C-alpha cells in the first residue's frame, strides 16, 4: 500500500521541500499543495526510478554535506589564488586515476560531482565499467595525495550513505 502510493518517500519529502522553496512561503496552503504534488509526481515518474536508490543515514548525509561545503570554500580560495597569482606555466596540471570502491551509480555520481564542485579537481571521465574515475587536477604536485584525499574524505562517507 505504502509502497504503491509512495514509492519513494525520500523523494517525496525532497519534493515537498522543493515546493516550499519554490512557493517561497511556509503556509498551510503551500504545504498541502506541495504534499499533493509530492505524492503525484513520484507516481508519474516512478517508472524512471527503478528500485533505487537505497539511501539511509541522515546524519551521514549531513556530515558529508558540511564537509563538502567546507572543502568547497577552502578550495575556492586556493584555486583563486592559483589562477590569479601563479603563472600558468608553473601549474602542474595532470590527470589522476581514482579507483572506485563504490558500485551504486548514484554514489559514483555523487562522488564525481563532489570532486568537480571542489575547485582544483574536475572529474572528466569514468572508466567504461565504472571502476575508476579520471580526475583532472589543476595543480597537483602530489597526485597520490589527491587520490587518498578523495577516497578518505568523500568515498568513505558515501559508502556509509549508500551502502
Amino acid at each position: 500500500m505504502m509502497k504503491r502510493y509512495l514509492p519513494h518517500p525520500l523523494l517525496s519529502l525532497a519534493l515537498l521541500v522543493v515546493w516550499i522553496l519554490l512557493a517561497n512561503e511556509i503556509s498551510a496552503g503551500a504545504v498541502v499543495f506541495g504534499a499533493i504534488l509530492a505524492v503525484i509526481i513520484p507516481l508519474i515518474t516512478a517508472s524512471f526510478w527503478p528500485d533505487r536508490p537505497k539511501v539511509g543515514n541522515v546524519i551521514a548525509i549531513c556530515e558529508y554535506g558540511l564537509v563538502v561545503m567546507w572543502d568547497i570554500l577552502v578550495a575556492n580560495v586556493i584555486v583563486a589564488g592559483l589562477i590569479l597569482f601563479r603563472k600558468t606555466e608553473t601549474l602542474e596540471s595532470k590527470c589522476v586515476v581514482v579507483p572506485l570502491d563504490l558500485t551504486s551509480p548514484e554514489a559514483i555520481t555523487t562522488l564525481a560531482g563532489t570532486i568537480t564542485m571542489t575547485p582544483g579537481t574536475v572529474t572528466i571521465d569514468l572508466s567504461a565499467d565504472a571502476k575508476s574515475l579520471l580526475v583532472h587536477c589543476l595543480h597537483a604536485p602530489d597526485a597520490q595525495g589527491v587520490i587518498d584525499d578523495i577516497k578518505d574524505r568523500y568515498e568513505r562517507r558515501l559508502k556509509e550513505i549508500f551502502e
Partner: protein
Amino acid sequence: MSLTLIVLLPFIGAVLPAIMIRAGRNACATATGSVTLLALILLMAKAPAVISGEVFQVSYSWLPELGLNVTFFLDGLGLLFATLILGIGLLIIIYARFYLSKDDPMGRFYAFLLLFQGAMVGIVLSDNILLLLVFWELTSLSSFLLIGYWKHLPEGRQGARMALAVTGAGGLAMIAGMLILGDIVGSYDLTVILQNADLIQASPMYVPALVLILLGCFTKSAQFPFHFWLPHAMAAPTPVSAYLHSATMVKAGIFLMARMWPVLSGTPEWFYIVATAGLVTMVLGAWIAIFKHDLKGLLAYSTVSHLGLITMLLGFGTPIAAVAGVFHIINHATFKAALFMTAGIIDHETGTRDIRRLGGLLNLMPIAGTIGIISAASMAGIIPLNGFLSKEMMLEEAWHTMWLDQGWVVPLLATVGAIFSVAYSFRFIFHVWLGKPRDENLPHHPHDPPFGMWGPPALLTVLVVLIGLFPAVIAGPLVAATSSAVIGGELPEYHLALWHGLTPALGMSVIAIVVGALLLMRHGALISATANLSRPDAKAMFDCAIAKLVALSRVVSDNLHNGSLQRYLSVMIVASVAIGVSGFYAEPDHTAGTRELLDVSPAAAIGWVLLVVTSIAAVVMHHNRLLSLLLVGVIGLIVSLGFIYLSAPDLALTQISVEVVTVILMLLALNILPKETPKESLPGRKLRDGVVSIAAGLGIGGAIWAIMTRDLPNSISAYHLANSKIEGGGTNVVNVILVDFRGFDTFGEIIVLGIAALSIFALIETVTQGEAAKRLASWVVSNRRSADRHPMMMVVATRVMLPLSLMVGVYIFLRGHNEPGGGFIAGLVVSVALVMQYMASGFGWTQNRMKVNYHGMIGLGVIAAAITGASAWVAGLPFLTSGFVHVHLPIVGEFELASAMGFDLGVFLTVVGAVMLALAKLSQVERMAEHVDVNLDPMDHDPSVRIATPEKEA
C-alpha cells in the same frame, strides 16, 4: 420569347449529338438537323413581319449593373444573317452526314457545329453589344474546336490556334472598342447606340473606338493585314470550311460593320480605313488565289477577296454602296457555300484537292460539275448569275469613288480585282471540270456522290441562278429590309436588275472577263514568271512571331524566376525597405520625438557589446555551423537578459525556454546536414548582400529609433492594466492579456504549434520512401563518436532532475495568472525535462516509460482550450469569456480558480505534445541515419547490477 428560343436552340441542341451518337450516325444527324430546322422555322415565321419593317425585341435582365442584359432583336439585317446561318447550317449538317467518314467522331462534330451556330445566331440577334461580345468570342472558341477537329493533323491544330489567336486578339480589341462606345452613349443597348450617331462621331473617343471595333471586324473577316489565318483554317473538314468561311464566321465581321454602319460610317476615318482595307484585301486575295493549287486554298483566298469587296462597299459609306454590299453578302454566301461543298465532293471522290492533278471531272461527275461550274461562273461575275449583279453594283460604286482626291485609284484597282477574280474562277472551271484528266492515278475513281452530298450545293446553285434571273422578286424584299436596317434610314434609289444599260461598270466587267480569261490562258507562264517573287508566307511569319514571343517569354520568365531563393528574398527585402522609406518621406511631416531617454547603465552597455560582438561573429563565422548555432544561443541569452532588464520577465522566460528547445532541434538537424557551409559567395555577391542587409538594418533601426524617442499615444493597454485584476482576475497583466483579453490569439498560437508538430510528423513519416530512404540507408557516420552513449553521471543527474523540473513546471503553470509564467513556459519546462531524459538515457528507454501519446496531447490541448472557450456559451456569453471564483478551503486557505486556467491547461498540453512529438520524430531520422538501435538499458553500464542481465521493462 421565340426569339430567345432561336438563339438557345442550337446551344441546347449541342448536347443532343453527344448523346444521340450512340443511336447511330443518322439519328445523330437527324437530331442535329431538326434542331436547326426548328430554329429556322421559328425564324421564318417572323420573316414576313420583319420584311415588312417590323422589329422584334425581347429582353431579360442578366447583369443590369453593368448594362449587360440578354436582349435580342430581329430586324432585316438580323433576319438575313440568321437565315443564312441557319439555312446554310442545315444544308451543311446534311452534307456533313455523308462527308464525314466512319472514323470521325461525328457526335463531337455536330456538337461543335451547333455550338458555333448558336454563337453566330447570338451575334446577329444581339441587342446588347456586350452580349454580342460574348457571342463573338464564342464563335472564336467554337471555330477553334471545329478547325482543330481533325486533331491528328498538325495543320488543323496550327490553323486552329492561329485562327484563335488572330480572331481572339481582334475580339479583345473589340471589347475595348465596345466599352468605349457604350461609354460615349451611356448604354450598351444596340438600339440606343444606333440612335446616337452624332454623339458618337463627335466624341473624341470616336477614333479609338472605331479603330478597336474595326480590328475586331477585320480579324474576323480576314481583312488585310489579318487575312492570313483564313487559308490555314482550311485544314478543317470541308463542311466546316463551307460553313465558317462562306456564310458565317467570316461574315461576322461584315455583319458588325453593317450593324454599326449607321453610327460609325460616313467619316473620312471610316472611309480610309475600311474602304482601303477592303480594296487591298480584294485585290490581294484575288491575286494570291490565282496561284493556289489547292482547291480549298483557292476558294479561301477568293473568300478573302470577296470579303474585301464587301468591306470596301461598306467602307464607301454611301447608302447605295451599302445596298450593294448587302446584296453581295447574299450572293457570296450562296455561291461560295456551294463551291466549298463542291470542293469537298471533289476531295471526297478523288482523294485530292490539288488542281494540278485534276481535270475533266465534268464527265465523271456531271451533277457536281454542273453545280461547280455555275457557282464558279457566278463568282466570276458572269451574266446572268447573281454574282454578276452585285459585282456590277460594286463596280458602279467604285467608279464614283474618289480616293485621296484621285478618281482613278478605286476603279482601276476594282477592275484589277475583278480581273483576278475572273481568272481564278475560270481556273476552277477549266482546270478542274473541263479539259482532260491530268492524273490517271487518283486515289479514288471519281463518280457523283450520293444525293445527300450534292443536294445541298445544288439547292444553293438553284438560288444562284434564280437570284440572277429574278433579283427583284427573289431577293428584293430581303435586300430592301436588310439594307434599310443597315442604313438605318431611307433607302436610296436602286434597281436589282440584270441590265442597267451601257454603264462604265459594264465596261469594267467586260474588261475583267476578257483580261481574266487571257490571264488564265497564260497561267503557266504567269506561275513561272512569279515563281521567283518572294511570297511572304504568313503562316511562317505567324509561327515565327509566336515562337519568338514564346522564346522571349521564356527568357524573361526563366531569368526572372531562376529558382534562387536568394534573389527572391533580396528583392523582397529591398522592396520592403523601399516602400517603407518612400512612405516615410512621402511628405516632410515627420517630427522628432521628445521622449525622455533612459540612461545607459554599465551592465546594459556590456550587454550591448556582447550582442554586437556575437551577432557579428555569427555572420563572420557562419561557415562553422555548430559555432553559429552556439552564437545564436548566446544571442538568445542576451536578448532574454535584455527583456528582464526592460521590465518584461514573461518574455525573458519564454525566450530562454524557446531558445533551448530551438537549439536542441537545430542540433538534431545539424547532425544530418553538412557541418560546414562552403564558402561559395563571390565578393560581388557578398557586397550586394551586405548592402541589402545594411539597408534593412538601417531601415528597421531607424524606425524603432524614431518610435522609441516619442511618447506612446493613448494605448488600449491602459484599459488592460486597469481591468486585469478587477475583471480578469489576475495580476500578471501580460498573462491576463494572453489568456483573456486576447485569448483568441493564444488559441491560434497553440494551433500553430500543433500544426507545426503535425507537419513535422508528416514530413518525417515519408522519409522512408524514395530518395531520402536511400540516402539514409547508405548514410556513413563520418565523425568520430564517443564510445559511451549515455554517460552515467548524466543519466543519474537527469533522473534526479526530472521530478524537480516537473515540480518547477507545475509551479510556473500555477502562478502564471499572477506572476510571470503560464501554460506555455510551463509546457516548455516540462518538455525540456522530458527531453533531458531522452538525451541522457536514450530514446528507447525513455519512450518505454512514457505512457503518453503526443498526438493525443496536441488534440486534447486544442480541445481543452476550445471547450473552455465554448463553456462560456452555456452562460450566454461569447466564446472564451472567462470567469473566476475565489474558493475557500480549510487549511489551504483562499485561492482563485479561473476558467482561464482551463485554457492555459490546453496551452500547456499542446505545447508539451507539440514539442515532444517534433523532437521524438526528428530523432527518429537520426537513428535511421546512424544505424544504431535504441537503447533499452537504464544506462550503458550499471556497476551495481554487474552487467549481463539487462532489465527489460514493458
